[in-house]
């Protein structure tokens, strides 16, 4: 690989200038994240002095703006975020992986191109469209079974559909990267397609498949608008699939318009918690990717 060495090859002033200005742009771009995270942290710091921080765990409701009896329990929202993500993954991950398997190992001349195209288009559908469909079609359907319709079930169906293409595409990529020789060698020794898939392909691509699932997980946790439209936004720990709930992302979206003082600080703290939840996921994914590229 040929690189410009930094200190020897630049007698020309324009080169110097270009390198400096590009370097400056790079600093600017790299610092955006510092600004965003730093800003969220700085704005959430006063929370430590304004309230006893343990109250976010010990309070069981969220009424931060109540003048007489404010409560700051974030647990219901955290549980809501966790549950809806979990339920979405519960069906979207197996489905996504089997679709990728179908594309790679059980291709059909008629279906496969359609499925591929559909996956690509679905990956590009804005979350608001899923939310809109959920609100106008899915919620009334669920309401027919059990009111109110805005529920954990609706949220996890909508979220699952949103992360499905991500899982399919990543898994397919992982399966596709298997060397062809492996399949030929397996066939030559009389190993059947399913046996190859089960004993060779899936274990070998574990890292890639997992990183697809983690990617979907990160996206699901961060999703806001689609969930906001179908979740009912009640602050409570949902007792069943048909109960409404609120996630930490929708909590920010619902309240950031008017929150002041401690309430506002706490929303920033929520955002900080959200970031703190996503960062380890990213680290996990990176380690999975390195594992994959090495093995």
């Amino acid at each position, binding site marked *: 690989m040929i690189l410009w060495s930094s200190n020897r090859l630049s007698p020309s002033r324009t080169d110097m200038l270009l390198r400096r200005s590009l370097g*400056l742009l790079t*600093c600017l771009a790299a610092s955006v994240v510092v600004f965003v995270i730093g800003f969220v942290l700085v704005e959430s710091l006063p929370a430590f002095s304004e309230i006893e921080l343990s109250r976010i765990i010990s309070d069981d409701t969220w*009424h931060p*703006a109540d003048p007489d009896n404010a409560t700051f329990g974030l647990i219901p929202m955290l549980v809501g975020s966790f549950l809806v993500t979990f339920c979405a993954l519960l069906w979207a991950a197996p489905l996504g992986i089997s679709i990728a398997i179908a594309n790679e190992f059980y291709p059909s001349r008629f279906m496969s191109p359609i499925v591929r195209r559909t996956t690509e288009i679905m990956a590009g559908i804005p979350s608001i469209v899923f939310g809109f469909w959920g609100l*106008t079609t899915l919620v009334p359907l669920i309401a027919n079974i059990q009111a*109110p319709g805005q529920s954990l079930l609706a949220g996890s169906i909508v979220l699952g559909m949103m992360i499905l293409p991500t899982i399919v595409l990543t898994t397919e990529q992982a399966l596709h990267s298997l060397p062809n020789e492996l399949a030929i060698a397996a066939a030559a020794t009389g190993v059947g397609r399913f046996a190859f898939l089960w004993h060779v392909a899936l274990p070998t691509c574990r890292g890639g498949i997992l990183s697809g699932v983690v990617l979907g997980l990160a996206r699901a946790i961060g999703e806001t608008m689609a969930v906001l439209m179908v979740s009912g936004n009640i602050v409570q720990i949902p007792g069943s699939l048909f109960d409404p709930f609120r996630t930490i992302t929708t909590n920010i979206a*619902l309240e950031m318009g*008017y*929150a002041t003082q401690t309430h506002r600080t706490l929303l920033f703290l929520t955002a900080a918690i959200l970031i703190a939840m996503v960062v380890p996921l990213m680290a996990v994914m990176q380690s999975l990717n390195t594992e994959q590229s090495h093995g």
Partner: protein
Amino acid sequence: MRKIIALKFSLFLLLLLELSGCGISDSAERIVPQRLILTGSSTVAPLAAEIAVRFEGQNPGVRIDVQSGGSSRGIADVRSGVADIGMASRPLADDEQDLFSDQIATDGICMIVHLDNPLISLSDEQVKSIYLNEVSNWKEFGWEDAEIVVAHKADGRATLDVFVKYFKLKNPDIKADVIVGDNQQGLKTVTGNRHAIAYVSIGTARYEVENGAPLKLLHSGKIAPTPSTVASGAFPMTRPLNLVTKEPPTGLAKQFIEFAMSAEVHDLVEQQSFVPIKN
């Protein structure tokens, strides 16, 4: 090399501070007197928008943008300077007395249900029992066996404040199924769900009913929810619709607020089923 990078970085930080400084000083020039931004109560927003259109018609070159988001947002935006005028569908609270408000109309709050619902009226006790989840099935009101879907407003909404104050409820005690934001979202929830119940602005609800939304406004006991009962004070749950400013209004803001309070817009107020202020 790393030192140089650190240097660049700090230079950049300085630059950004500089920029933000410029931004602030620029903004003073940016807010030319010909523009007004109103944010806040979703009850006031449609009325304010209508008044704005007429005001713009009379004052060419003026542009007035109206956005909803709730009374508390209106007040927060006026405080932060993002909005010139805040809209609030409630009186100013104790900790908001530093602001200035002008009432442009009066509105009531009533319960609404789906048009299919045979219910005509609810007493205060009945409303309370529904919102405290003591009664949870429409069967109890002589309708079909279906769970009541209780829609409740989000924190920071004026309608919620007026509602809990009137019924002497504590917000944390209320057991709801859906949290709604704007008035319109409350209406939409009820039109989309036969078994829902919500409380909304009378003006907004009547406007939607006239536009064909399958809704029904419930009487409060024996009193019908109409502008005339609100005007006469017979309807129990009423509240002022206010325009709020940080300082005593001046310039274009003053002009607009005076216009909004004048008799020139009473027809618009009535058209929205609100009650104009007559002196």
